[in-house]
């Protein structure tokens, strides 16, 4: 009977010792689901959410990279728009040679087209969903992209567009027909067409006789038209293009603000996700990690218990009446 009791005690103590050793080695207090089923489930939830946060941060970084590239292009584009506006002024004042002016216009057109066809990560930056297609075609300079927003997940229930389409940067949408009077008492009427198309009609002083008309749907076409007007010394057309260039630059400012806002939001969200993950990691540690001081103390206690049981066993089991019977 005593033997059985002693072996049971030894077995229990050894089992406890083994468990504590494993906790010490792994630093974890939950070694199996049965150790703390509820705690493990909470730990699993935290791990999933931390992993998701990490994925969202990755998505944010991808979006930030793309939008930063967009920002760089827009800054450059803005500078060249200033140049275009300056070219219009020079052309109207006839200060510089028309041939030089026309060449400048052609250069600006090509620069605008190059900016519009910028690639990032081997995809066209301003083509919307048509990221494999060059947004601005050579020759016609027509926009071949679409207005697709490539959304990325930045939180459980939040997405954000990681791109901006060419029609929002290199075009502007005329909300309603407008008109203004230019030099010589002539009138220019701007009428919205399909999409970002603007139909321009230049009328004589009677605002009835149509002297000229043309249309454009983006800044590249506008610049191409400007170059032709400079070559032809057509100051009326040049003057008619001044307001569209102002409008497209205003549109650019809106887009730059939009992108800046998104980048700011992404920064904030990235930071929030980081804080949230850190907080969850702290909670996770409190669930998963063993208190080393406590484990070591329990280990010591178990060692002493084991030693005591062994000592007791060695004494008790060696005692027998037979030893005293000679």
């Amino acid at each position, binding site marked *: *009977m005593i033997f*059985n*009791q002693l072996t*049971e005690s030894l077995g229990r103590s050894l089992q406890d010792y083994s468990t504590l050793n494993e906790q010490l080695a792994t630093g*974890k207090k*939950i*070694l*199996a*689901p*049965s*150790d*703390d*089923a*509820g705690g*493990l*489930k909470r*730990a*699993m*939830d935290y*791990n*999933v959410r931390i*992993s*998701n946060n990490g*994925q*969202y941060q*990755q*998505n944010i970084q*991808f*979006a930030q990279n793309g939008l930063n590239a967009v920002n760089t292009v827009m800054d450059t584009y803005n500078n060249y728009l200033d140049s275009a506006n300056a070219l219009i002024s020079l052309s109207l004042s006839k200060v510089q040679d028309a041939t030089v002016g026309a060449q400048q216009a052609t250069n600006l057109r090509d620069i605008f087209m190059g900016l519009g066809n910028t690639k990032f*990560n*081997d*995809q066209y930056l301003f*083509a*919307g*969903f*048509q*990221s*494999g297609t060059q947004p601005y075609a050579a020759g016609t300079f027509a926009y071949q992209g*679409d207005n*697709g927003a*490539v*959304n*990325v*997940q930045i939180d*459980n*229930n939040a*997405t954000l567009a*990681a*791109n901006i389409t060419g029609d929002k940067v290199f075009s502007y949408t005329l909300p309603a027909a407008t008109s203004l009077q230019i030099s010589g008492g002539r009138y220019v009427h701007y009428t919205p067409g399909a999409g970002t198309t603007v139909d321009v009609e230049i009328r004589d002083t009677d605002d009835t006789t149509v002297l000229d008309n043309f249309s454009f749907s983006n800044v590249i076409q506008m610049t191409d038209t400007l170059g032709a007007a400079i070559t032809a010394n057509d100051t009326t057309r040049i003057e008619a293009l001044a307001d569209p260039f102002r409008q497209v630059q205003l549109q650019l400012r809106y887009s730059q603000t939009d992108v800046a806002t998104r980048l700011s939001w992404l920064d904030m969200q990235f930071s929030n996700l980081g804080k949230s993950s850190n907080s969850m990691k702290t909670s996770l540690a409190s669930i*998963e990690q063993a208190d080393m001081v406590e484990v070591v103390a329990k280990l010591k206690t178990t060692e002493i218990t084991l030693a005591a049981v062994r000592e007791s066993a060695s004494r008790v089991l060696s005692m*027998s*009446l*037979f030893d005293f*019977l000679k």
Partner: protein
Amino acid sequence: MSILGLFDIGKSALFASQTALAITSNNIANANTPSYNRQEVILNIANPVSSAAGMIGSGVTIEGIRSSYDKFIQAQLLGQQQNQGSSAAMDQAWGQIEQVFNEAKGVGLSTSLTDYFNAWQDVATNPASQTPRTVLLQKANALVTSAQTMERGMLDTLNGANTGITDGARQVNMLATNIADLNQRITQQESGSGRATALDLRDQRGQKMEELAALVDFASFEDNNGSVTITVGMRNLVSGATTNPMSTKRNVDGNQDLYLDGINITGNIQKGQLSGLLAARDDIQSSALTGLRKLVASVTQQVNALHRTGFGLDASTGNDFFASLQLTATTNAVGATVTAAITNPDLLALDEYRITVDAANFVNVTNKQTGALVIPPALYSSGSTIALPGMDVVITGAVATTDVFTVSPLTNVISSFGVALTDPQQIAATTSALTLPGDNSNALQIAGLANTAQSAIGNNTFSGFYGGLVSTVGVMKQTASDSLSFDNNLLTSLKARRDAASGVSLDEEAASLIRYQRSYEAAARTIKVADELMQTILNM
């Protein structure tokens, strides 16, 4: 009394001491024999004889040998042995399942499930790029591997349980045969004596009954002839010298059921290792295994539903991402067969159905897990279609009331789980061919499934449902461990009580040895003295 009377007295003392020494030696020899009950000799005063001086005692007689068997403790011990047997089997089985779901050590599905849906996020952020698509296929294959490894682990445990049940039945039969044989020998030995004299045989039988108790719960009673009748599941296992062998047979679910006397006694087995194996097997199958299968089926169904509507980079559409769900139709009938086909994979209910035909020839379709009726009973007609959510079932032939048909979309869901796509270009990240390649909306929707409550899994997200499974396994194992610990402690306590009452104490036997040795020496001395007296008289 004559001098010869002295010889008789000495002789009786000698025989009594010799017998007592033999019994004491037997006790010492069996000190470590399980279930051995300490024996002691019952001595009585021999009938006195009349003499001139009055009635003089004529020595000692051996009335019999008594065993320190405590019936009450033994009955308690048998009962507790049955409890402990059941707890041990449950603890072991759930312990094996716990290792399959041991997320504490990173074993399980959680990481691969999260990685899979995060890989869809990567495709969504860069839908035209090849790299995240290739990675997505890798993560999907990793998910498949994890699920299949887990299922294999569980099936191994379930197969082990079924094998354990078969082996257990075999051991029960062996023990029943041993007990029946001991019954016969005890009856023969004790025949005519009117009391329990075959003590060693009874101890052996007690040991066999303890071993039997560890396996299965039984009721026993001893008749006047010393023979024990044992009933299991209200059927006779042992009756005198005869036994009814226990057998096993596969049921409609492919699991082993227990039979005795041709009757299915599975439901009547409440304790013992067999009960533990049965309960663990059924619980594991209905909770952990079915739960995991349902999770995989739900992932397959939801991902495929969205994927089929999307477009790959190569403009392909209508493709499943994972291998499509399949139905398993099982027939347990003689004259009829069942077939089933999926009519709408998106509407397919992830439930298992049991179909029977009652005596009134009405077809009853019940949910295999809950037992609830799925559709109103309808009159059976061979070849007619039974429409269930997302599937059509057809039974043909002559049915009997004992026939059972099972239809399930879950049986092979994990074994046939696989990634249907091999070409990353076919991953349908886009919702329209017109918005290729940059449209990521379909990929976003599929990635969003990770955070969407799914009705098929109790309105939980995939991770939430899986976490619940892990938690359930943990609780079941904890409960089994606690029960085992309690039962072990109680069994140890009862054994200690039994040992205290019936066990052999070597110290006590050592003292008895000395006592009876001295008695023997004194008796021998008595005979020597009587001999010397006789010599004196003869030499006169």
